[in-house]
């Protein structure tokens, strides 16, 4: 059993990581927190001496499906995460404390661990009418998010609500539900999906903790590790697509043979997610395997991309022969040009910032004579 008293540095040592890996992790965390290079020593000191990384998990406009998904994780199992890997100091779904005792947990964490805690956000932020559509302890979601994000070492947006607004952001978006990367001026790792796959969620967190660096992100701030491929490209029904064998009606002979669901409205060709590789609930299945087309729940604005049972080919500007990148662009532009453009620009800017911090860290080590 791992020693819960171990510091991050001790844990990494035990797993065979070098001092260099550790310092890269520290500089990554500092970079995300917006801490200047001169403050890096403070972060290194903290991570050498502080045990399990404190985590704050906020809930805004959401349905708690992300929390529910998180506790379905099989590798690692969630009990180990909660007891041994992280210190989940504030989470409305699971924490014992309520009311002002719960608020104190939040206050203590963001104060005592400034620059060190990981902020996880589930849900979107309603920006309309001073935020009266989501209030916690008499405060607006925006107010709480800004306070908690200020000194966070890393910010992760869980699910489509926090990443792109999801259902409450669907037309006509009655509360002006807003993804968190548009509310805070800080890099955000987007982990979309409604919800994301449990093992992807714990995978993102442990990637940061174990490898000491953030996962590579795509143009929408999503970890390429899990969102780098279209569901269609890795779908086990893909051979039927290539052979031109399609389900024509629900539960027809072709459905019973497991042919491709493309003609039934499957969004696999325009959806980037790990469903067909990692699969759901410890690898049991994924939507297409169980007979329903993909609804594209990890894509920006997917609720407004036309009815779910409408054949994709009728999307304006879409052709199945297009490359993945072209499809992404065309559908993105067709669906929500402003949102997508903003997200891409924002994330390119953030990636640059993060990448600069990483380079800086490596250069710093080389100057000190460290080597790979």
């Amino acid at each position: 059993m791992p020693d819960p008293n171990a510091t991050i540095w001790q844990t990494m040592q035990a797993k065979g990581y070098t001092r260099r890996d550790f310092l890269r992790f520290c500089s990554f965390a500092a970079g995300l927190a917006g801490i200047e290079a001169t403050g890096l020593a403070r972060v290194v000191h903290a991570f050498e001496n502080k045990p399990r990384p404190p985590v704050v998990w906020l809930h805004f406009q959401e349905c708690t499906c992300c929390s529910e998904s998180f506790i379905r994780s099989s590798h690692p199992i969630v009990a180990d995460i909660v007891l041994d890997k992280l210190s989940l100091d504030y989470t409305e779904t699971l924490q014992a404390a309520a009311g002002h005792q719960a608020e104190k947990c939040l206050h203590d964490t963001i104060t005592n661990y400034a620059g060190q805690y990981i902020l996880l956000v589930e849900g979107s932020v309603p920006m309309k009418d001073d935020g009266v559509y989501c209030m916690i302890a008499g405060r607006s979601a925006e107010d709480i998010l800004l306070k908690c994000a200020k000194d966070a070492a890393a910010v992760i947006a869980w699910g489509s609500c926090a990443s792109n607004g999801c259902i409450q952001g669907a037309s006509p978006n009655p509360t002006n539900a807003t993804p968190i990367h548009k509310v805070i001026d800080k890099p955000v790792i987007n982990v979309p999906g409604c919800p994301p796959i449990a093992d992807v969620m714990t995978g993102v967190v442990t990637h940061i903790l174990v490898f000491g660096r953030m996962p590579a992100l795509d143009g929408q701030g999503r970890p390429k590790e899990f969102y780098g491929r279209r569901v269609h490209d890795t779908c086990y029904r893909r051979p039927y697509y290539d052979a031109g064998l399609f389900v024509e009606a629900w539960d027809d002979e072709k459905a019973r043979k497991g042919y491709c669901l493309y003609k039934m409205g499957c969004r696999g060709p325009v959806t980037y997610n790990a469903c067909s590789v990692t699969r759901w609930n410890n690898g049991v299945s994924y939507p297409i395997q169980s007979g329903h087309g993909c609804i594209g729940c990890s894509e920006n604005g997917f609720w407004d991309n036309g009815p779910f049972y409408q054949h994709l080919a009728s999307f304006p500007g879409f052709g199945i022969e297009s490359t993945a990148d072209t499809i992404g662009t065309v559908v993105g532009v067709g669906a929500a040009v402003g949102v997508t453009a903003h997200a891409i620009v924002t994330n390119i800017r953030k990636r640059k910032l993060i990448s600069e911090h990483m380079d800086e860290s490596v250069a710093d080590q080389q100057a000190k004579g460290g080597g790979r």
Partner: protein
Amino acid sequence: MARIVVDPITRIEGHLRIEAVVENGRITEAYSSGTMVRGFEKILKGRDPRDAWAFTERACGVCTTVHALASVRTVEDALGITVPKNAELIRNLMCCAQYVQDHVVHFYHLHALDWVDVVSALSADPAATSQLAQSISRWPKSSPGYFADLQKRLQTFVASGQLGIFANGYWGHPQYKLPAEANLMAVAHYLEALEWQKEIVKVHTIFGGKNPHPNYLVGGVPCSINLDEVNAVNTERLNQVAKLITDAIAFVELVYLPDLLAIAGFYKDWAGIGGGLTNYLAYGEFPTRSYGQPDSFKFPRGAILNRNLNEVHEVNGRDKEEIKEYISHSWYSYKNGDGAGLHPWDGETEFNFTGPKPPFDQLNVEGKYSWLKTPRWREHAMEVGPLARMLVAYAKGVTEVKDIVNDTLGRLNVPVTALFSTLGRTAARGLETKLIAHWMQEFYDELLANVKAGETRTFTEERWDPATWPETCEGVGLTEAPRGALAHWIRIKDKKIDNYQLVVPSTWNASPKDHNGMRSAYEEALLGTPVANVDQPVEILRTIHSFDPCIACAVHLYDPAGRQVHQVKFY
């Protein structure tokens, strides 16, 4: 006399706020407020009705799947579709799996810490814990070494100084009554339940592709059955479901129920607290023939008034005189004035926030104070949920229900009136979980028999094509979420959704007062609840959690002078 603030209420889904008054150690008034709204009804307008299940399923990721079920039933009702028997059975299996998972998670992870003192478990004798565990159940994980290892892990955890989710609990509160050994056993099962709950949901993954939020289909279920195919529900998939059901029955019978009875035995005083409303409503669930034949349901449909178990009233979701929603204290406006009640087919969803702008310390409870509307059944405030389901079934003489309820009352040595309480609500949830786990086995056996007989249809094509739909039609889908009576209403016009309204269990239970000042279930149940320490109101959590809230709110109690003894602060 004092005021207590509990904000946010944790271990629930969503954001809930209650403001109430405590005098002489008892609650004399309470206000329940939902403080988050997303506007599903507005978003659904103009959409394809066949997509509605996917939208409404996102109303909740905790009781995931039940909104999808209500939605497909609503659309099928409007279009006159009867789904094939296999589809009905698979829907039952998915719904049962939801109940079993959700109730176990509620008991251990959302409710148990109101009764179980985690810190006290540190001082338990593992050998005595083992004896206790073996005396109440033959669950194999019960050796002294097992509990000693767990205790060691807990001790290391606590010694780390980082208590994580257990930080700042009401540990050591005199209202915790369990011996240390029972506390240690409960903590062990807290962790085991966390592991087990991710197994049973695989029933959703097999038939619906994922959990949370499995896939549904108007006209049936999306999965096909084909014993000659690897790409369909085949023998291997069915065997996996069988194994999950067997394991579920074992966990519920050998862990959940023994724990529930053991813990309840120390808290019998709670059989006299938190009863609240005297009216109970259930729509019924688990068709054994088809959804269109409610007399075939495992849980019957009906309403009980004034705790009169000798009479069960008929309930009809289509009758515009029965269910109406009021907004006298809700942040909405109606076209023809706020005083009227609207049947959901005529329902309106127009935001009208008149509360204090955040940040604020208290709501204006004289005016509108919640994002929840207030539903009424024939003008009566009704409690919904496991207790309502069990009472309606008990009153209707359902043998299985009568047997298990009477047996439990006997074991705890409490009268039938003990059901009308916080403890009764929590016990009803456990008892129905046992029944439902066994019903899962029945539904599974029937599905297998159908397949064996060559019946494999899971979908009906009739009315899938919008060209076959009437110009306008209306439908209602009644179901029972784990938390209680759930229904959706739809009006379809020109192949699109013209109006869609959801009335969910927490709307019944957690709503603000109605146009007559009549309280709903949470507010009424809190009245008279003793509060030993206003700074640590564990009693409020016990009663509120006994409803298994599925909303976003928090609880505030104020003294009659309006002075806050306990200020909510955001740090």
